């Protein structure tokens, strides 16, 4: 089966849903699996709140939806996009003034 419009394979196969790419550690407490998907180190989710069964499509759906939602928010509510460092410089400038 060939790829869909976003490069992913169309068609659901159970066997493909439970093994995300090997995690790569990105901080003491987080790993990354798929591109743009960051996950808490699962060892921190072993006591009070256990992780849910999460097929790969669901992680990707949420990540993609989040990006779509943030784009939507920007389109609807942001007059301009400001880089954080600009804001910090502005605050610093005001502090000096």
């Amino acid at each position, binding site marked *: 089966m060939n790829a869909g419009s976003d490069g992913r394979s169309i068609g659901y196969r159970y066997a493909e849903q439970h093994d995300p790419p090997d995690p790569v550690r990105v901080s*003491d407490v987080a790993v990354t699996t798929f591109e743009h998907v960051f996950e808490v180190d699962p060892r921190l989710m072993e006591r009070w709140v256990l992780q849910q069964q999460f097929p790969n499509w669901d992680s990707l759906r*949420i990540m993609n939806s989040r990006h779509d939602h943030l784009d939507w928010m920007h389109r609807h509510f942001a007059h301009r996009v400001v880089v954080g460092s600009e804001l910090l410089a502005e605050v610093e400038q005001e502090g000096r003034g």
Partner: protein
Amino acid sequence: MTQTDRGEGGGADALSSPFTPGMRDNPAELGEYVDGIVGRPLPVVDGAPVGDPGPSPEQEFATEWRNAAYNCFSSGHKFCREVCPVMQVTRNESWTPTAFHANVVAMEKGDLSVEDVAADYVNCTQCGACELRCPNTLFTGDFYRFRTRTVDVVKAVRALAVDQGVHQEGWRTWNARTDERTHEPVLGDTPVSQEHVRDWSEGLDLPLGGETVLFVDCEAAFYRTSVPRAVAQILRLADYDFGLMGEQWCCGGPAAEMGYVDQAKRFARHNLDNWRSTGTKRVLVLDPHDYISFTEDYPRYFGDEYADIEVVLVVELFAQLIREGRLTPSVPVERTITYHDPCRLNKRKGIWKEPREILRAIPGLTFNDVDRVTQWSYCSGGGGGLPVEKPELTAAISERRLEKAAALEVDTLVSACPWSERPLSEAGAGQDIDVVDIHELLAQSLGVEVGGTTRGPSTGEGAA
């Protein structure tokens, strides 16, 4: 954002100075910090004193669902409210996703029985808007592998109610008739039956069984037969080999949605066994509700036994076939349209590009699109058994959806879900807007005379 200022000289008080366990720059004493902030949940089974009646069924139920419920109850964001189609038309606080979770908390504490609240849980289309828009899903769900589960909670409470003998009369009758006929009674008093499940394909001479089968949901098989006829003829046009199931039963999804889980599992078992008996490895699905059943319910029921079955959504397949040049829509369709994102595709599966790809490939269309995020708050009201118990709510939700379409000055609302098309069509009549299925529209542009009906056999009218 969590403030991490620990004050002068730092400190090891995790209550006044929140910290992230495991970070290497934590003070050494916090590395050995024993988490004692939250007490362990009280045991509800073991250790009950002599004479104690023990946990109620609701409390046993809550042991499984308490984390999902507190995930909502302890946050209280309530972003779910304005995307909820039922909330939009009723403003009833007892019918919100928040209430559905809070009830579970109350059941755990012994303050509610399922009988008290079962009727409230009718008021949900299981569209998934609330759980996707919830920050606990949208912003942290993939990070923690823990997200809001309103749909699962609603299904579970409905199942608990059925288990406790608390039935909604419409659902009880609907599922009893489904059980008797192996298909949903979508034609009302006109009975459906196994002998007629393939009548929609009359004259198409489709084979039975094979490696790939086309699964046709009850609504399309008996009521809107133009949809499977369009799909079958388009597949044939693209030289795509497929057959029909020898003995197809309802997928079982609606029974699961209404709480009749044992019945749902029996139907699922039948269908899986039937696929096995014909050597089927790939199931083509034209209905988003079936797609949910086959990619969420069946894997839960069967686990590894389901490993060799591939489920393909027809709308994704058609977009691919167009991309590959195996389908080229060339007959202009002069309509001004907008597209209704079916909830189970857009919100619950994140599938929204491919239908638009198809529509943009059809010449002649003027496409006034509404983006997928705006459509998180749109719904037809046709899912989750709502039309069976509360048809007036379904009608109100569809009415609202058609008002959105009318504001775009379109003459056609295109959907990709047969279950949405009946209530949307009824609402569309008042707005003078046609409701057309995307597969029907594509077939028209491919020069296919579809045949079949769009409004059931008794009042049937020709499709494209």
